[in-house]
C-alpha cells in the first residue's frame, strides 16, 4: 500500500545532526552525492550517509507495516464476500498485500535492521503505518472503494518510488506496482457492477462507502508541502520524487473523472474544474483528523495493533516448533 513515513517521521527524526565529521567522511559524502546526482542506484553494501540509511529504514519499514496491517480491514470481508468469485479475488488481493509486506521487510533488512527489530517497533507502537488502515470497513462496498481509491492513491505514490535511489527498495517497488494494478481494477469493476446492475440499496451502499473513504484517501498523500519539512532532503537523495500536493492533485484529477463513469459523487461541495489551472479545485482537508489518526486516536488504531500483536504472539509456538524441527533434522543429517 503506502507509507507516510517521510512526513510523520519528520518530527521525531529531525534534520541530520551537525556533528563533527572527518575529511574522509566528507569526501565519502561528496562522492555519494555525486552518485545520486548522476542518477546512480545505491546498493546495500555501498557507503551511505547515516541519515540516508535511517530515513530509508523508517520509510521502507513503515511501508511494509502498512501492507501487513492493510490486510486486516480487507480480511474482515473474506468470509462474507457475496460470491465465490469475489471471495477468490479478495483472497488473492490480501495474499498480495502479505507478499508486498515481505518484499519490503526484506528490502529494509538489507540496511542492517533485523526482521524482529522491525516487528518490535510496530508492535510496541513506535513505528507507524499508513493512517488509512485505521478506518473501519463497514460494508461490502468498502472492498471495492478500497481497491479503487486507496489502492489508486497507493499506486500514484508508489510508481515514482520505482525510481528511488536505493536499489533494493526500487526493485521491490517495481514488483509491487506490477501487482497492485489488479487491486485497483478489481475494485473499480466491483463497484461498476453494483452501480450498473445493482439495486437502489446497492447504489446507496457504494455512495456511502465513497463518502467515508474519500477524505481519508486524500490524506494518504501526507501533509501539505508547506508542512512537510523532510521532503527537500528526500528529494535531494532521490528517495522522494514528487511532492505530496502534486500527487494529491493528480489523484483528484484522475478519480473525479472515474467517479463520473461510476455514477457516484465525491463528498466535497467545493470540488469543481478550474479551467485556468486545468485541475480540479477541492475543499480543505481536515488535518486535525489526520494527525489524530496518525497519533493513535483513529477509529480503529487500537483494534488493528491488538490484532497484529495477537497474531504474532499466537504464532510464537509455531515459529519455535519449526526452528526446533529444523535443528533436529540438521543434527540427524550430520550424524
Amino acid at each position, binding site marked *: 500500500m503506502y507509507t507516510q513515513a517521510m512526513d510523520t517521521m519528520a518530527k521525531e527524526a529531525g534534520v541530520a545532526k551537525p556533528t563533527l565529521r*572527518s575529511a*574522509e*567522511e566528507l569526501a*565519502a559524502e561528496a562522492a555519494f552525492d555525486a552518485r545520486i546526482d548522476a542518477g546512480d542506484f545505491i*546498493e*546495500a*553494501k*555501498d*557507503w551511505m550517509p*547515516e541519515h540516508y*540509511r*535511517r530515513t530509508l529504514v523508517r520509510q521502507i519499514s513503515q511501508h511494509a507495516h502498512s501492507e501487513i496491517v492493510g490486510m486486516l480491514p480487507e480480511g474482515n470481508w473474506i468470509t462474507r464476500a457475496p460470491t465465490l468469485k469475489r471471495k477468490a479475488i479478495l483472497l*488473492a488481493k490480501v*495474499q*498480495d498485500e502479505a*507478499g508486498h509486506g*515481505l*518484499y519490503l521487510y*526484506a528490502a529494509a*533488512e*538489507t*540496511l*542492517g*535492521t*533485523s*526482521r*524482529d*527489530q522491525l516487528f518490535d517497533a510496530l508492535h510496541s507502537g513506535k513505528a507507524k503505518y499508513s493512517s488509512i488502515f485505521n478506518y473501519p470497513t463497514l460494508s461490502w462496498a468498502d472492498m471495492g472503494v478500497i481497491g479503487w481509491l486507496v489502492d489508486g492513491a497507493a499506486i500514484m505514490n508508489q510508481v515514482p518510488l520505482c525510481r528511488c535511489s536505493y536499489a*533494493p527498495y526500487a*526493485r*521491490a517497488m517495481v*514488483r509491487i506496482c506490477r*501487482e497492485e494494478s489488479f487491486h485497483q481494477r478489481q475494485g473499480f469493476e466491483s463497484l461498476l457492477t453494483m452501480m450498473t446492475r445493482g439495486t437502489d440499496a446497492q447504489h446507496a451502499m457504494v455512495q456511502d462507502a465513497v463518502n467515508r473513504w474519500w477524505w481519508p484517501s486524500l490524506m494518504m498523500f501526507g501533509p501539505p508541502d508547506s508542512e512537510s519539512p523532510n521532503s527537500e532532503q528526500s528529494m535531494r537523495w532521490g528517495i522522494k520524487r514528487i511532492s505530496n500536493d502534486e500527487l494529491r492533485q493528480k489523484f483528484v484529477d484522475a478519480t473525479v473523472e472515474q467517479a463520473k463513469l461510476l455514477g457516484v459523487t465525491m463528498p466535497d461541495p467545493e470540488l469543481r474544474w478550474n479551467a485556468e489551472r486545468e485541475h480540479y479545485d477541492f475543499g480543505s482537508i481536515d488535518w486535525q483528523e489526520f494527525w489524530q489518526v496518525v497519533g493513535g486516536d483513529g477509529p480503529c488504531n487500537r483494534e488493528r495493533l491488538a490484532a497484529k500483536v495477537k497474531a504474532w504472539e499466537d504464532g510464537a509456538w509455531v*515459529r*519455535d516448533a*519449526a*526452528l526446533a*524441527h*529444523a535443528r533436529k*533434522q*540438521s543434527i540427524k543429517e550430520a550424524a
Partner: protein
Amino acid sequence: MSHPESGPSAGPPQAGPHPLGGSTGVPAGRGADMSHEWPLWEVFVRAKSGLDHKHCGSLHAADPKMAIQLARDVYTRRQEGTSIWVVRSDQIVASDPGEKGSYFDPMEDKVYRHPTFYELPKSLDHM
C-alpha cells in the same frame, strides 16, 4: 566473506572494508538475540525453461523445504517461475563492493575484446 545483500548479519559493510572504517549505522544491540529468527534465504527463480535462474529476493524460513514452499508463495503467485533455487544467505560469497573499481575497471580498456573494435571492408560487415 560478505554476502550479496541482506541477511541477519549483513546490511552495512561489516566483513568488507568500510570506506571510513567507522560507524556503520547498525543499531545497538542488533543481532543480540537472533536465535528465534528464522534464517534468511536468497531466492532464485527460472522464469521459463531455457532461461537461467535469476535472483529475485530473499525470505526467512526455518529449513530448506519451507524456504522452497514460501518462495513459491511469495515470488511466483502469477506463474513467474518454473523452477526455484534457495540458498542460505550466509552461504553466499560475494565480491567486495569497496573493491569494485580495482576489480572490474581493468577490463575497461580492453576494447579489442569486442567485435566492433575491428573495422572490416563493407562487404564483410556481417562477419
